[in-house]
């Protein structure tokens, strides 16, 4: 009786470990569901929206300008931030605020990206902490799942003027 119970317990533990490993690999290498909070990506992503992010683009190095990405925060490795890629390495980006009279530009260094939230007035992003190393990117958001009336692929940036063409 006890041996049966022990056998069942070990089998259950074995299944849990197996599923745990598969789930971990899936989240790490394929993608997962993310709940977003904060106002910095409005109107594209509102507070407590649920989105699906895929991690394949970062492993194959095909993150493009204009993608919305999930990035480990440069100042706090335990938290994640969600922003749009405005410039890749070598691109020229505008570092000054839209309200400034004199515009300043700089080039994104090698191995880094320039991130900005869609809600430019209420977003701490690369204009605050500088270009972010590519290695901190965790995944690319490809689909919005919740709220259901806004289901689907994400729109283009409302701030098209921030993208400077070479």
């Amino acid at each position, binding site marked *: 009786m006890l041996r049966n119970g022990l056998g069942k317990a070990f089998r259950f533990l074995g299944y849990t470990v197996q599923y745990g490993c598969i789930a971990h690999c899936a989240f790490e290498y394929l993608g997962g569901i993310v709940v977003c909070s904060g106002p910095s990506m409005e109107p594209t992503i509102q507070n407590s929206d649920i989105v699906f992010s895929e991690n394949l683009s970062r492993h194959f190095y095909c993150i493009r300008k204009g993608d919305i990405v999930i990035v480990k*925060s440069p100042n706090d*490795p335990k938290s994640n931030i969600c922003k749009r890629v405005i410039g890749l390495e070598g691109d020229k980006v505008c570092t000054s605020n839209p309200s400034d009279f004199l515009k300043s530009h700089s080039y994104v*260094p090698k191995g880094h990206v320039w991130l900005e939230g869609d809600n430019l007035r209420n977003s701490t992003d690369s204009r605050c902490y500088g270009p972010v190393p*590519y290695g*901190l990117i965790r995944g690319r958001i490809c689909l919005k799942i919740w709220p259901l009336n806004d289901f689907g692929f994400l729109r283009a940036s409302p701030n098209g003027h921030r993208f400077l063409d070479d």
Partner: protein
Amino acid sequence: SPRNPEQKIIKRVIALEGDIIKTIGYKKKYVKVPHGHIWVEGDHHGHSFDSNAFGPVSLGLLHARATHILWPPQRWQKLQPTLPPERKPLHREQE
């Protein structure tokens, strides 16, 4: 590596967030390591592509800690976490 995301580099941690250290060949003579970052240097000063070239490294880029050398067998050893005395931080932030 902060400059090349495809590459992994192996260096020694010299300073943690909040410490102020004296740099070798960096654009600023003294650097206070920002929150969430570390300062890394290779043991062979002057011939190392480390924080003296690319600045403090975000902790999110940290991949793993090297504990032992396995190969070649004559160099089999445990890597000691020692800080060279001349590279000690000037001011350590007390926790």
